[in-house]
């Protein structure tokens, strides 16, 4: 019997096998009835049977085998097969589950047909069936991985979008809050000095504290919503002695009433600074607190303790987030920092939180340690490297400014003081000099920034006598750098940097950075 005729005359048997297979797919089909399980299968099979009866040229056959959209009779999309895809997607089937339905359908049709003597040579038919099955298995595996990867990419994109939206919201909120809080602060200060009845003192104190609270919250939200990969959002280190006071507000703000947050040692003002930027640390601990809170909510509430202990021998601080939640089994514990691993329901967690915390810590020389047992809660410890307090005194770095424009001078002074360069301004070219040779030998660097109020011969002498640590930034093209000159040679080896006479702040900043990097390399 021809295959198309076999399909049409054995429809019910084939549909029953399809239904049985769909039912065996597990949780997703548990509550579905036969009609839902057989969704559009009859239409699809009828379409297939009709398709088999249409004459195909060799070229058409080849085009179809390559999945070309131009292939004739590929209008399944508009019929049962297309609608079946829509239905399965809304029912929550994964892509590989849907593909496996088709694999099972093909296998069962060919098996039933062969058994019914549909093909003269049964061993050849079997080979075709086996071949189809093998290709199908390979396809299903690829689809499964593909679908998983697409899902992960979408989850990551969503997480990023949410952060960007939060950033915009926090910036806007910060702006509006400061416009309200500034006048409030001034008014409270005014009232504190006014002759008011003594009973109003505690009220004013409460108002003042509230304004401070909201200012802290605004700062905290800004740090929390900043791009963690942007190193310039906050300084490279966090002073732990003041950090908690700022961090605690937004953390508490996001917890539900059944979760209590306790600080234990983390509020100590004796804690050192650690080499992790504030916004990175705030986001890492926020992730840990959120995870703990979600675990606690699943058991009806509980406690979170944030604590900090310094290990002076190791030069680290262990910042711990502990909860009395359900804890994790060994398998979950082993996998919980893998990207996209999540135990939360679909759509709730991205599975990125702990992985991001671990990556952020490692990027800044820290570590994430986790301890957990079912029924005994979980402890997440961030091991943070301490910024060395007793480091060698910084080598002397001096900046000498010979500049007419007061604002440019002030800008350079501000930028250089920010990185620990001692700045002196000279009124007359050469007045500050390069100091005695002994002083130069111990100095880490000399930087001269000059405009055309400086004497070119004197600047050249500065370059010649200053030694290898001398850098000169000149504003304007008054300094001779023609071929063969000493100026050209200094430019070539990076000791002389020439910028515009009226540079923008970014040009200035770039030139100063290049000069300073020169010292450090």
């Amino acid at each position: 019997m021809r295959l198309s005729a076999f399909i049409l005359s054995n429809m019910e048997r084939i549909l029953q096998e399809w239904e049985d297979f769909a039912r065996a797919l597990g949780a997703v089909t548990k509550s579905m009835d036969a009609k839902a399980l057989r969704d559009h299968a009859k239409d699809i099979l009828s379409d297939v049977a009709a398709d088999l009866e249409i004459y195909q040229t060799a070229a058409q056959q080849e085009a179809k085998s390559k999945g070309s959209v131009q292939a004739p009779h590929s209008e399944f999309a508009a019929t049962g097969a297309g609608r079946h895809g829509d239905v399965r997607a809304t029912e929550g089937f994964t892509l590989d589950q849907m593909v496996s339905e088709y694999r099972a359908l093909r296998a069962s049709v060919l098996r039933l047909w062969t058994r019914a003597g549909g093909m003269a040579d049964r061993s050849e038919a079997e080979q075709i069936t086996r071949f189809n099955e093998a290709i199908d298995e390979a396809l299903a595996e690829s689809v499964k991985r593909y679908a998983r990867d697409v899902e992960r990419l979408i989850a990551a994109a969503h997480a990023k979008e949410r952060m960007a939206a939060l950033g915009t919201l926090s910036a806007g909120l910060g702006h509006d809050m400061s416009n309200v809080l500034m006048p409030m602060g001034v008014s409270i200060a005014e009232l504190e000095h006014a002759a008011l009845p003594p009973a109003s003192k505690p009220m004013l104190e409460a108002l003042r504290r509230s304004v401070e609270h909201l200012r802290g919250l605004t700062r905290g939200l800004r740090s929390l919503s900043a791009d963690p990969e942007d190193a310039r959002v906050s300084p490279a280190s966090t002073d732990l002695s003041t950090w908690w006071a700022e961090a605690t507000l937004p953390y508490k703000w996001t917890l539900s009433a059944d979760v209590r947050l306790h600080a234990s040692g983390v509020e100590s003002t004796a804690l050192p600074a650690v080499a992790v930027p504030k916004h990175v640390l705030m986001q890492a601990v926020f992730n840990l607190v959120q995870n703990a809170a979600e675990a606690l909510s699943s058991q009806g509430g509980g406690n979170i303790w944030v604590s900090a202990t310094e290990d002076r021998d190791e030069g680290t601080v262990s910042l711990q987030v502990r909860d009395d939640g359900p804890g994790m089994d060994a398998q979950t514990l082993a996998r919980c920092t893998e990207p996209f691993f999540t135990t939360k329901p679909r759509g709730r967690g991205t599975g990125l939180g702990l992985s991001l915390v671990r990556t952020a810590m490692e990027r800044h020389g820290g570590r994430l340690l986790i301890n957990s047992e079912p029924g005994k809660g979980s402890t997440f410890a961030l091991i943070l490297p301490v910024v060395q307090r007793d480091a060698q005194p910084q080598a002397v770095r001096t900046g000498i400014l010979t500049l007419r424009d007061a604002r440019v001078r002030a800008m350079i002074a501000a930028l250089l003081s920010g990185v620990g360069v001692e700045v002196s301004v000279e009124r007359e070219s050469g007045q500050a000099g390069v100091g005695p040779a002994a002083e130069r030998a111990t100095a880490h660097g000399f930087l001269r920034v000059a405009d055309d109020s400086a004497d070119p011969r004197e600047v050249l002498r500065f370059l010649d006598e200053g030694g290898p640590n001398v850098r000169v930034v000149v504003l304007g093209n008054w300094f001779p750098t023609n071929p063969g000159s000493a100026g050209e040679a200094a430019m070539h080896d990076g000791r002389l940097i020439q910028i515009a006479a009226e540079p923008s702040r970014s040009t200035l900043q770039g030139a100063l950075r290049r000069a300073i990097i020169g010292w450090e390399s």
Partner: protein
Amino acid sequence: MNRVRVLCVDDNEEILWALGLHFSHTPDITIVGSLSSLAGLAAALNETKPDILVLDLDMPGKSPLEAMRELDGSGAATRTIVFSGHLRRELIERAMDAGAWGYVSKNDGEDALVTAIRAVMAGEIAWSPEVQSVLALR
């Protein structure tokens, strides 16, 4: 002692009021004018010749950055300090490029503004603590 003459521009009347109140208790600073828009800025600058212009960045109408560039190019002795609730790095950098001598976050408060006014009068560039953390040369 010569008091520092300050002109304040902010479309938020509460901020202007609060600055007036705060500076009235600051002996070395006096307010020579308050504007709630940029419309009368040129005339006010001409008339009052302030030492310091305290300028908000988020105002309807003409761009405050453009106004700063004009002031910077006019050769006037007035130095601008931005007093803003915005802390985006690119905005701070654009304000500094437009000729600002200082940038103070409103969240750092009125005392930070007073500190900045004194620093700028002493010939320094002034960034309030929140701004410094954004702009640091690193």
